[in-house]
């Protein structure tokens, strides 16, 4: 039997930027409305002497119509030739952020709507941030209401430039920006003849071009234990460990480890009801297992395959949190953390930085997390939990925080941290201060040879200094990311990833080495501080005092490398030495 593919998409945007109109149009133009519905709404508009709008189609609830804003995540359905869609309308008003989050968290792709006339607004930015954090993989930006700006290409382009740069900082790269008018249907289902300068796809074509997420069975096996069942009715003596497999796969006979308890057993059977017996089962299935021996297992353990890479077990981790509750998240208060199937008591140990989601500026020194803030912080649980970092495995790296019965915040784990790490950070900060006041005046660098082929190197700066450093770096790794407002064409031609845009601490994520070589000395120092906070080691250009490492002058030949350092003090002397050594080995007149 033919089965049609299904996809969840979300439409988000600032209030009044036209989300509901976009959805109403999508339904109408794809013929997905029950015929009575359109007439019913039109008649109702006529009765109330209001001009008909496509947005009214969605306003199924009376009190919503009264307020004129979408208060909740409504679901509706439309079909194209390719597949069926569940479309989630997420409210744009900041008061309803938790509804927007609920809608967006279910989506496989997002349409971000921006009013061409009003331009980028606070929530356009906040939504961009949340989409990045919620991990929605595919985004298209709709520049709506082009009719209000006379279909002006310049207006469109300035939004593309500004919002594109903003999203890039967050690591979100939209598939396209589409100039359109939902009210008139321009570039929605049909290509518009009013904007011939736009040659890209229509909204509907882009929606059909979204791809389904791959089921990633290659990752390590993780199944949060949701419950352990023993239903004795009708002589059933099975003891079943039940849960939904988040990643990987597992087979009968495999040895499994439960974390954080570290209990082990072997899978005897994979259980199901009215389903053929299977010996292997993988990601996505809500299933159950019987084990070779009866373990006492509290709910909330993560079942893993013993031979796989195991999750981290700990009680302290670094996370990014967004807070939705009126009452702020404060230190030394007990909250409930729900992560995978575990529920534990947690407290806010440290606020590392608070980011104002509207402009991504970071507010330092804040001691609590207020409503609608996005914060980088350290959380501490009262008992150990098993988890992964978000870059490793999404589903065991994200959590919600419950305050007084309500889900108040959501977050992702960025790093594990042990008891000591924060102390180390404090020591670094103290050292920074001592440097700034000139107590530490000289230092000497340990020469070593580092394998960087599997690590990320981040270069902030795109001018000549960066170019010279990159010329050496690219011989040792191809995992280099370059960030700068403008990047030299020679750098762009190198085998590196580059992004032009304003610096944000987010670009340092996961870096092992960071080079700060912009032409702004103050900024370079700040990059240095940011880099240490994320655990990277840093080189601040022309500032050995604030660097963890420096770039020696290097001479390479075949398998040999010679590096010369003057501890950052006499760069020209280092180069002289290096050149002398090169001459020694490359001059055919000399014995080698």
């Amino acid at each position, binding site marked *: *039997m*033919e*089965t*049609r*593919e*299904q996809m969840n998409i979300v439409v988000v945007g600032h209030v009044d930027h036209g989300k509901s109109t976009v959805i109403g149009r999508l339904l109408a133009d794809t*013929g*997905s409305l*029950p015929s*009575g519905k359109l007439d019913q709404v039109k008649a109702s508009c006529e009765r109330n002497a209001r001009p008909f709008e496509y947005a009214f189609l969605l306003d*199924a*609830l*009376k*009190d919503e119509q009264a307020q004129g804003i979408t*208060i*909740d*995540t*409504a*679901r*509706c*359905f439309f079909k194209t030739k390719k597949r*069926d869609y*569940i479309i989630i309308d997420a409210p744009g008003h900041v008061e309803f952020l*938790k*509804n927007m*989050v*609920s809608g967006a*968290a*279910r989506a496989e792709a997002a349409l971000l709507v921006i009013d061409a006339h009003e331009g980028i607004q606070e929530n356009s930015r906040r939504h961009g941030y949340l989409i990045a954090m919620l991990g929605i993989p595919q985004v298209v930006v709709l520049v709506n209401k082009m009719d209000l700006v006379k279909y002006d290409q310049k207006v469109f382009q300035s939004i593309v430039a500004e919002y594109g740069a903003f999203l890039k900082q967050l690591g979100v790269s939209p598939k396209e920006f589409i100039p359109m008018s939902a009210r008139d249907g321009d570039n929605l289902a049909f290509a518009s003849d009013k904007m011939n300068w736009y040659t890209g796809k229509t909204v509907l074509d882009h929606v059909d071009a979204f791809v389904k997420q791959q*089921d990633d069975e290659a990752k390590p096996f993780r199944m949060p234990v*949701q*419950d352990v069942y023993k*239903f004795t*009715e*009708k002589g*059933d003596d*099975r003891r*079943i460990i*039940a849960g*939904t497999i988040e990643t990987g796969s597992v087979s009968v006979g495999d040895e499994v480890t439960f974390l954080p308890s570290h209990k082990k057993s072997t899978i005897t059977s994979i*259980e*199901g*009801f*009215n389903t053929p017996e299977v010996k292997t089962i993988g990601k*996505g*299935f*809500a299933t*159950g297992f019987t084990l070779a021996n009866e373990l006492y297992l509290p*709910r909330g353990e993560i079942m893993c395959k013993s031979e796989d890479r195991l999750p981290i077990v700990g009680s302290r981790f670094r996370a990014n949190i967004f807070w*939705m509750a009126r009452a702020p998240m404060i230190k030394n208060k007990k909250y*409930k953390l*729900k992560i995978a199937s575990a529920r534990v008591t947690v407290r806010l140990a440290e606020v590392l930085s608070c980011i104002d989601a509207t402009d991504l500026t970071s507010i330092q020194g804040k001691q609590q997390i207020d409503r609608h803030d996005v914060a980088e912080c350290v959380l501490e649980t009262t008992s150990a939990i098993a988890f992964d970092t978000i870059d490793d495995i999404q*589903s065991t790296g*994200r*959590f*919600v925080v419950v305050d007084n*019965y*309500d*889900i108040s915040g*959501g977050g992702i784990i960025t790093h594990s941290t042990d008891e000591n790490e924060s102390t180390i950070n404090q020591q670094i900060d103290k050292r920074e201060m001592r440097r700034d006041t000139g107590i530490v005046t000289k230092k000497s660098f340990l020469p070593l040879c580092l394998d960087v082929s599997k690590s990320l190197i981040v270069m902030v700066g795109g001018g000549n200094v960066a170019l010279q450093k990159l010329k050496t770096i690219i011989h040792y790794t191809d995992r280099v990311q370059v960030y700068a407002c403008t990047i030299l064409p020679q750098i762009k031609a190198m085998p590196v990833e580059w992004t032009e845009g304003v610096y944000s601490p987010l670009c340092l994520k996961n870096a092992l080495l960071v080079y700060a070589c912009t032409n702004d000395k103050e900024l370079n120092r700040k990059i240095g501080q940011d880099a240490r906070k994320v655990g990277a080691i840093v080189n601040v250009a022309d500032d050995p005092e604030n660097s963890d490492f420096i770039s020696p002058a290097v001479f390479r030949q075949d398998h040999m490398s010679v590096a010369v350092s003057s501890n950052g003090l006499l760069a020209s002397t280092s180069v002289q030495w290096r050149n002398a050594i090169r001459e020694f080995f490359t001059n055919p007149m000399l014995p080698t």
Partner: protein
Amino acid sequence: MDHLEKLEAKSVYILREAYRDFKNLCMLWSIGKDSTVLLWLARKAFFGHVPFPLVHIDTHFKIPEMIQYRDDLARKWYLNMVYGENTEAINQQLTFHSGKVDRLTCCKNLKTDALKHTLAGDWLRYRMNHVTGTYDVDSNKEPYTGVIAGVRADEEGSRSKERYFSPRDKENEWDVANQPPEMWNQFKTDFAPGTHLRIHPLLDWTELNIWEYIEKESIPTVSLYYNQGNGKRYRSLGCWPCTSPVDSNATTVKEIIEELRSGKFANITERSGREQDKEDGGGLETLRKDGYM
């Protein structure tokens, strides 16, 4: 995984989550196709068992075959079957059929109020005695604080705004504007004393998905859904005075699936045969806010 496997897995997860967190849990069973699929999913989730009671509200206007089917399955699957009713309204004939009240008041009397008080435990509940195969008055009067219901988001407007775990206050009221966030399979499972939750594992299913799954799993359904030879079948089941069939020649599940895929009903809402919807502004919202399912 295909789309039915994904829908099944999500619903099973939600059912297990509900079972984990609620001591006084029940599942509403209207005998219709959706709540029967829900019942089947419970058997999936709990490996052939249904570890909570099934609650049915008997309006005494259900088509008799539905009651027969309910009791047959309850015996066969050994269900903890409970029903409740508004005895007073039925005895005094405060119904639409008698002409004494309008449709919406009838719904409120026979369904909403009966449900409210059956869940609260302050009206009589009747429970199937599996020894005799008949119903006894249930001695358990504890209120149910978690109620699993088979509503689908695609059915009509107000249902599209539901959460998987949706809190109702003491009066059973639904605060639509202030619902809890849900993300990454984390739902509202903590609640203050006095509130209770509605749990909606079928929210993402469509009418077509329901029938596809009925076919895949061979789930028994009431024959009223199929053409009985008069060229008509019921698409949605309710009380007979307020429910009308649609024109259809479908006599099997396969034919219903083909009919739905053909787009024959693309322009007719599923509940078009349910008269009370039309009188509630097309949204059922007034009824639902008050506790209607």
